[in-house]
């Protein structure tokens, strides 16, 4: 069984936000009013953490993209009363929207605030309704959603590999963010495949994971030579 994981090379990342835009488009993530977004109700599957260091004029800006970490020991799935979110055999933390009852326990349990809640039925910019991605369903008001590692793309590549009667190749299953990163700072692949790029990078001396001491075993790795 594969174990899908993502690596961000922060030394290459420019913080441009192309991953966030690609993710919104790919996954039909709804647009939220600016005031509501200010109130913390913005919907992002791929978020960006901002921090700065130092005083003007020598300010260093740090930006860190943050998807769902698809933890191997996920705290969110343990609190779901209806098993709408669970860890599947491919190491993906699934979110089955039609099963979700909107209790938001999982949001409270996630240490990384990776999950977001649909307070309203989705709203779209004018004209956007004509260009939904048909491979991803639209969520309704009252359900929790989050980054899926573009699991819908796995349907397609798995099937193509099955038709050709072969195993999946490294790099065949790529989420939209990794595909669209102009700096090639995002890597994606199977940790169980010892020849894959993410496996090698996950062993790099530059590697770290967010809040590693919690023991939730995130499958998203960050590479950075710079400290903290």
């Amino acid at each position, binding site marked *: 069984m594969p174990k899908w994981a993502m690596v961000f090379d922060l030394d290459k990342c420019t913080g441009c936000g192309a991953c966030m835009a690609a993710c919104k488009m790919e996954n039909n993530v709804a647009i939220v009013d600016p005031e509501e977004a200010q109130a913390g109700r913005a919907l992002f599957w791929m978020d960006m953490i901002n921090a700065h260091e130092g005083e003007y004029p020598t300010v260093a800006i740090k930006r860190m993209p943050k998807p769902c970490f698809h933890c191997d020991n996920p705290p969110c799935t343990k609190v779901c009363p209806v098993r709408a979110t669970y860890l599947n055999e*491919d190491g993906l933390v699934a979110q089955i*929207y*039609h099963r979700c009852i909107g209790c938001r326990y999982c949001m409270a349990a996630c240490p990384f605030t990776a999950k977001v809640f649909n307070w309203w039925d989705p709203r779209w910019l004018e004209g956007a309704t004509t260009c939904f991605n048909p491979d991803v369903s639209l969520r309704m008001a009252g359900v929790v959603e989050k980054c899926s590692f573009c699991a819908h793309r796995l*349907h397609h590549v798995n*099937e193509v590999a099955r*038709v050709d009667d072969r195993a999946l190749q490294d790099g065949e299953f790529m989420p939209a963010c990794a595909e669209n990163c102009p700096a090639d700072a995002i890597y994606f692949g199977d940790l169980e495949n010892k020849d894959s790029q993410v496996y090698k990078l996950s062993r790099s001396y530059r590697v770290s994971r967010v809040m590693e001491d919690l023991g939730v075993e995130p499958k998203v790795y960050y590479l950075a030579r710079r400290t903290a």
Partner: protein
Amino acid sequence: MARIARAGIRFVILSVAGIVLVAVFIVVKSYSRARPSQPIEYNHKVHIENAGLNCLDCHVHAGDNVAATFPSLEVCRNCHNAEPVSKSAEELKVLKYVAEQKEIPWNQVYQVPDHVYFSHRRHVTVGKLECSVCHGDMKQQTAPVSVPYLAVTMDNCIKCHRERKITNDCLACHR
């Protein structure tokens, strides 16, 4: 006494009539819901037996893609262009569409909701399943499909998957 009996009979007759009316209403209503009118009373049997066509001649992507797809007007035009080949009034409608170059707006009966991934290629080409397993004997179908042969429900998907030891991971079907 007689008056009470007459009133009782009237009450019975009225309520029976009421029940019959409601029943007729429900039947008509469900019948009209179960049968989405197709623009043309299409006949599978004559095309497979008399015209010698295969499923894949018309549902061209049933073997190599997610959706089987309905035939485009282009397919019908191969045989139905200027002169009618039968005495059917339905065929004249086809000829009208062909003359106007307007696609026939077929209604889909078998349909999974947008949050479910179902692929014909996976089941027909990889799984080696006959169309009839899910769609019944379409070769004998003389009128448009009105009710699915195998209802498109999660129970039916899961039952077959369990019998054949195929995954029933929610994420395999849901998206």
